[in-house]
């Protein structure tokens, strides 16, 4: 069993899915010979050839629109947007068609496609390469939104996404593409797309996050535990549909919750989680629900990008603030 990185987990799942289903094709800019600008599709072109690993013209509306067309006719496109910022032109086809085809036709048609792309900041990339648009997709009915944060979850959730009979937005946290290695068996086992993953158990406070922020959140948990606290850490992983039950169950025990999100704060996924707690979780809260988020500004160019993102200190401070409330 190999020790692999998150991006290698993606690649391993893609290869596996292509092997088990001849209808699965890769579809996007530079996914072919080049193997993707991050090498997520590396090796697939060699193995599966031009007709299954398809370099497209440079046109995101086309990539999304044709994926809808292909998906409806028995091909399973795994479309790639080269970077998060370039999914914006795709929103029309995702919102108006991918998430609606089944509903529109009362089940006569469906749209089993995956749109995958590297998301988030922190790798010194140019403008529009560092956004975290999960909240936009999560607000759209009819599409699932998945964000793995470990090699094994990348593998298991990607398999689930490709096998799913409905459209899945699969966001890859590029800052942690190569952060951690993990032993992952290429056993074809998928992971469920409707549960949160509890990474660490604790009783004093619940930290909820997803994507790259799992890194800082675990570091913050370490610091808090060094101070004698017991910290629960939940990786949401599937932001739509969202498993509020796991989060509420945790907050029932801890009474305190900080939600950590890289995206801008206003109308983000963190707000949805906090809103869920303000409703079903309220009787268990001992303190305000804090959100530690990106600011409501344009993601800065790379020299200041890490100042935009929630730091370990910001997380720890927010946690301490609500731990002081008795």
């Amino acid at each position: 069993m190999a020790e692999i990185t998150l991006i290698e987990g993606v690649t391993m799942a893609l290869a596996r899915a292509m092997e088990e289903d001849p209808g699965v094709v890769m579809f996007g800019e530079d996914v072919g010979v080049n193997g993707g600008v991050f090498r997520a599709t590396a090796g697939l072109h060699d193995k599966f050839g031009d007709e299954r690993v398809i370099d497209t013209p440079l046109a995101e509306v086309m990539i999304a629109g044709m994926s809808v067309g292909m998906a409806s006719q028995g091909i399973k496109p795994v479309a790639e947007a080269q970077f998060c910022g370039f999914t914006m032109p795709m929103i029309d086809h995702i919102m108006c068609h991918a998430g609606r085809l089944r509903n529109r036709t009362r089940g006569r048609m469906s749209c089993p496609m995956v749109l995958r792309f590297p998301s988030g900041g922190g790798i010194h990339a140019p403008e529009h390469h560092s956004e975290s648009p999960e909240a936009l997709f999560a607000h759209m009915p009819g599409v699932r939104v998945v964000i793995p944060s470990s090699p094994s979850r990348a593998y298991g959730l990607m398999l689930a996404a490709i096998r799913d009979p409905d459209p899945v937005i699969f966001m890859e946290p590029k800052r942690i593409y190569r952060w951690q290695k993990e032993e992952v068996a290429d056993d074809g086992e998928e992971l469920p797309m409707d549960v949160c993953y509890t990474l660490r158990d604790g009783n004093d406070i619940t930290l909820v996050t997803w994507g790259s922020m799992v890194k800082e959140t675990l570091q913050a948990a370490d610091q808090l535990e060094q101070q004698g606290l017991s910290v629960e850490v939940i990786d949401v992983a599937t932001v739509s549909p969202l498993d509020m039950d796991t989060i509420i169950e945790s907050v029932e025990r801890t009474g305190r919750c900080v939600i950590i999100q890289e995206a801008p704060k206003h109308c983000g996924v963190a707000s949805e989680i906090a809103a869920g707690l303000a409703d079903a979780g309220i009787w268990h809260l001992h303190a305000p629900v804090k959100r530690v988020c990106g600011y409501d500004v344009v993601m800065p160019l790379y020299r200041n990008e890490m100042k935009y993102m929630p730091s370990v200190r910001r997380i720890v401070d927010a946690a301490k603030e609500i731990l002081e409330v008795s």
Partner: protein
Amino acid sequence: MAHTAAAFKVDYFQFLKPDGKLVEDQQVPALARDFDRLTELYKLMVLTRTFDKKAVALQRTGKLGTYASSLGHEAAHVAIGAAMKEEDCFAPMYREYGAQFYRGVKMSEVLLYWGGDERGSDFSGPKHDFAWCVPIATQCLHAAGAALAYKLKKEDRVAVTVVGDGGSSKGDFLEAINAGSAWKLPLVLVIVNNQWAISVPRKKQNTAATLAQKGIAGGLPSIQVDGNDLIACLWAMDKAVSAARQGKGSFVIEMITYRLSDHTTADDARRYRPGDEVDEAWDREPLKRLKAYLVDQGAWDEQQDEELLGECKKWVQQAADEYLEMIENDPQPVTAMFDYMFAELPQDLIEQRTYAQEYAEDGGHH
């Protein structure tokens, strides 16, 4: 060094003149003599127009929502349907009933759709055809995707899509042309140029001589035909579909016709369109000329025409009754808005569905 890197042209074809006579100055395609096929299609054109009238009447009497008429487009639409095989894929915009009827979509389904009931898009006709597409021109890329799917699966199928003169300005259509070129897709892109995009006239879309020439952007063969001439429309469609099927790639056809009706029943074209323009357009409309030709050739007569009209009215009435019966006695329950969202309903939607059932009485159709 200067040289011509590439040269192109867009040819225009008309075989049947507005007066019902064939043009004299050129070879007319063999199908002009295929009276069986022509009368069959003439019948469908008459049915489509009869249906159209009924649908407008239903809307006017509050029994149907906004409806987009196909008045004046019958030759173009019927030709599109007639050139396709069942296994081909049609990605329509929203008014190509003639094509859809040919392919097996039921009239009652069209009514259900405009009557605000999703079951209208669960076609009896080809299960793989796309439903009506409201976001203009997006359907062109769905057709391109379908065409690529067939090509990858090595199936002998063609995707056909339609866009309007207005929709031809949209990036989706232009990207579909480019995709057709990039992959040599079995894709036929039809521009049904009816001169108006709601209130915006053709000349405001751009100042180019033709809309067909957009196909040249991708190096696609691109032609114009008289969209009121069934023979020209069908000849062009046959040619394009068979080229696509033979692996020769994509094709652009601009069918020049005229929207004789308001844009939809929600529109009042008198606000922006001169009446005499419409009057003149009636002289060129497609049914009259095809009938004149068929009668002239002895393939049709007035009595048959009257009988046909009577039958069409009967069928249309049946469809309307079916529709009204369904929405009155078998309306979709509130749960129907949940049940087709996903193959398997997620937990949060199961809960919302249960809650919605508690309020099933609220917000009835008003």
